[in-house]
């Protein structure tokens, strides 16, 4: 198998990388680009820990092959507060105690972020739908929902 060249926008910057066409996007991000904020919890699209945004839509990066992002815009957790300033959503995760072990957090935050991009005033059911694919074993979800709701209000 030969490596192919792909070009995409990663966290607001244009990049070009060479990768095997069968490489998972998750591995490209974590192992080749050293963006370890994206986590692997299951590898089969069931836990949401690997959630990232492609063209503003939340997707599981464990189910995507790297070449699929050619020409697209990718946002990982590292790109969310790139200027060092936390977003209101991130601040609310802290404030409402929506984080325990933190392993699900990057995926959870990005799922919520994707929701707020397309719908700035979601109702509770829409919030739940948006994070229904993100498992958290620590929190019980209540504080996560509260954090997202508080972000909607502001």
């Amino acid at each position, binding site marked *: 198998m030969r490596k192919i060249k792909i070009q995409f926008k990663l966290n607001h910057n244009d990049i070009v990388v060479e990768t095997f066409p069968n490489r998972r996007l998750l591995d490209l991000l974590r192992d080749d680009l050293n963006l370890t904020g994206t986590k692997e919890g299951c590898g089969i699209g*069931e836990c949401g820990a690997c959630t990232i945004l492609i063209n503003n839509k939340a997707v599981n990066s464990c189910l995507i092959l790297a070449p699929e992002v050619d020409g697209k815009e990718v946002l990982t957790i590292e790109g969310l507060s790139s200027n060092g300033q936390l977003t209101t959503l991130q601040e609310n995760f802290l404030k409402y*105690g929506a984080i325990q072990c*933190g392993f699900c957090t990057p995926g959870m935050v990005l799922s919520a972020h994707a929701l707020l991009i397309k719908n700035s005033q979601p109702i509770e059911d829409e919030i739940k739908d948006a994070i229904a694919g993100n498992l958290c074993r620590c929190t*019980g979800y209540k504080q996560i*929902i509260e954090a997202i709701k508080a972000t909607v209000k502001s």
Partner: protein
Amino acid sequence: MINFDSIKHVRGESQFVYDFIPFEKVLYAYVFYSPVAHGIIKKINLDNALGIPGVRYIFTYKDITGENQVGGIIQDEVLLAENEVDFIGQPIALVVADNFLTAKHAAKLIKCDIEELPSIFDPREAFQKGSLIIPPRVFSLGDVDEAWKECDVIVEDRVESGSQEHLYLETQGSIAFPVENEGIKIFSSTQNPTGVQRVAARVLNMPMNKIEVDVLRIGGGFGGKEDQATHWAVLTAMAAKKLQTAVKLILPRQEDMRITGKRHPYSTDFKIGLKKDGKIVAYEVTYYQNAGAAADLSPAILERTLFHTTNSYYIPNVRATAISCKTNLPPFTAFRGFGGPQAMFVMECALYKASQVLGIDYHQLQKINLLKDGDEFPYGQRAENCRAKVCYDSLEKIYKVDEVKGRIEKFNNQNRFIKKSYSIMPVCFGISFTTTFLNQASALVHVYTDGSVSISTAAVEMGQGVNAKLINIASRVFSIPPTRIKLETTNTTRIANTSPTAASKGSDLNGFATMEACQAILKRLKKLAATELKIEDENQIEFKDEVVYCKGEKTDLTWNKIVQKAYVNRVSLSAHAFHATPGLYFDRDTSKGHPFAYHVYGTALIEVTVDCLRGTYKLDSVQVVHDLGETLHPVVDKGQIEGGIVQGIGWMTMEEIIYDKRGKLITDSLSTYKIPDVYGAPEKIEIHFLENAPNDFGPFKSKAVGEPPFMYGIGAFFAILKAMNVFRPGLEIKFIAPMTHERVLMTLYSEVKEKVRL
């Protein structure tokens, strides 16, 4: 109160073991494990696997230079199988290669001829065949045999409770590398750094001081990384030593689910005798614990089952027998509650069944029998500062249980197929390691010359917020902001001989040690300040918000200044403190003593809606009154309670572990094993902290929080059961958990005698 420790998480900057790249060159390991539940290894052929380019080495038991033994309580578990395999998933070999995929691919090419032997998967069958981990244990109080004569009704039944996968979101993993002087350093995702160090030393035949274990944080543990993180850490240490380079082993989710232990399934017989008025007179219970193929922590878990036999109730005559049965499944291990939930579930089943026979409301029965001060537990300790009743009563008042009842009755009268119900679940949980010597911890505190503070303890941060609590404690003692305090990694070179972070004791033990170390430094600073301010009595010095006060008056001395002065005057700015919980003892021969520093109490109200046509249900709400003493960190504590409740509900309702006839786990991925997602969690959770409830045995009068809330989840089972009984009065109930949707449906319609009229 914000948990500052979480800032890195929300930015995606926090590192877990599998994020570390400490070296340019890291090799990746993959475990080759037994595909049969019981058998003799006839031949193992590694040639094909070794022929794959990129494969560096394949380890078998023959490569072990020390003892091939990882057992803790009992030394009955090999690291790599020798001649016999005892469960599917038992590690046989470790493939090490340049990258993960190569290692995995090579493992598939290992040929292993195994002659299968008969297997046992059922604990009762194991018991009959004499396959036990330890001899049965018995706790008793009063005279059960005599007491039956006084009873007006006697009820018996059988209870089954299922296993549960921890599903920490971060799977098990470790990375090890050689350091100078023939040492090995291990980054492990473990709750038990010293456990890893001790076993690595044993297996590698090295002194403990040459093995350094470091834990930055772990992505959830719940008990699953108390004993069972060790194997992976030791395997990487062994490989790193031999290959003289860094070796990383991260279990993929499916392997993690297949190989590692889970919550113990229990099969139990109970017999309960009561007076007509509802007072329990006698209770006899026999627990068959399915321990799996090796002891692991099973004997300790078995003991905690016995400790919690009577949950939050007083029963004058008890005989509880617990039998740890050896089967051919992966060794079951610690999981939040540590055997307590299994006992409490049986207790509630006994009360539920008795209520039906007696015709007294189930919750009335609970209330009649609640523990009070001075009541004796079957293990000889007496209830002190007992808050069972105040929690129960407050719950009824705060959440208006009478109104809830009325509302539910009205709903049920108006709806034929959809039924609502509620249940109340009181919990009493003993706090301390029941193995007394584990109740020790130390802390090392440094104040640097710029006034910033560093703390090292034995506690492992796994999401339970122990770092935030320890920072809070130091911040209160020194009266400086939390932002000036840093929690270091848990490292065996800084803090030696650590107890695992478990038994909900992390904050208590390490909290006291931290407090004592900080106080020792503070005392020196006060003395120095007294000298500086030219007064005799250092007790008139106070530190408040980074300023030194003398006789209540503000002075020019600040925290920073006095720290500087201490350094210049050669006063030590570091302290190491050791804490051992006082007053604990337990005699394993008589099964009597004072094993717990105190108990945590609480009560939950759970409401459900069951669709009795489809068997589906929804958790409407869980409302709780919980005794935290005086909370050290309300945000962290609330999170622990909510998370515990949801996990407990998962165990009782949707999380079902299924093995096939050969002992192979069928529910080995997240597509077949379901934990609560946002829709599986209750629609509403409300937590009320019991007021005016200081605890003299916790740091700053707090109480431990980790495990007790898990058991509120048991109430979900009974709420669903009650709704089913409303739909079908007289329905014959089997006490089998989890009560999945499927089981609700099958129970409601298994013995349909009359046609359901639509």
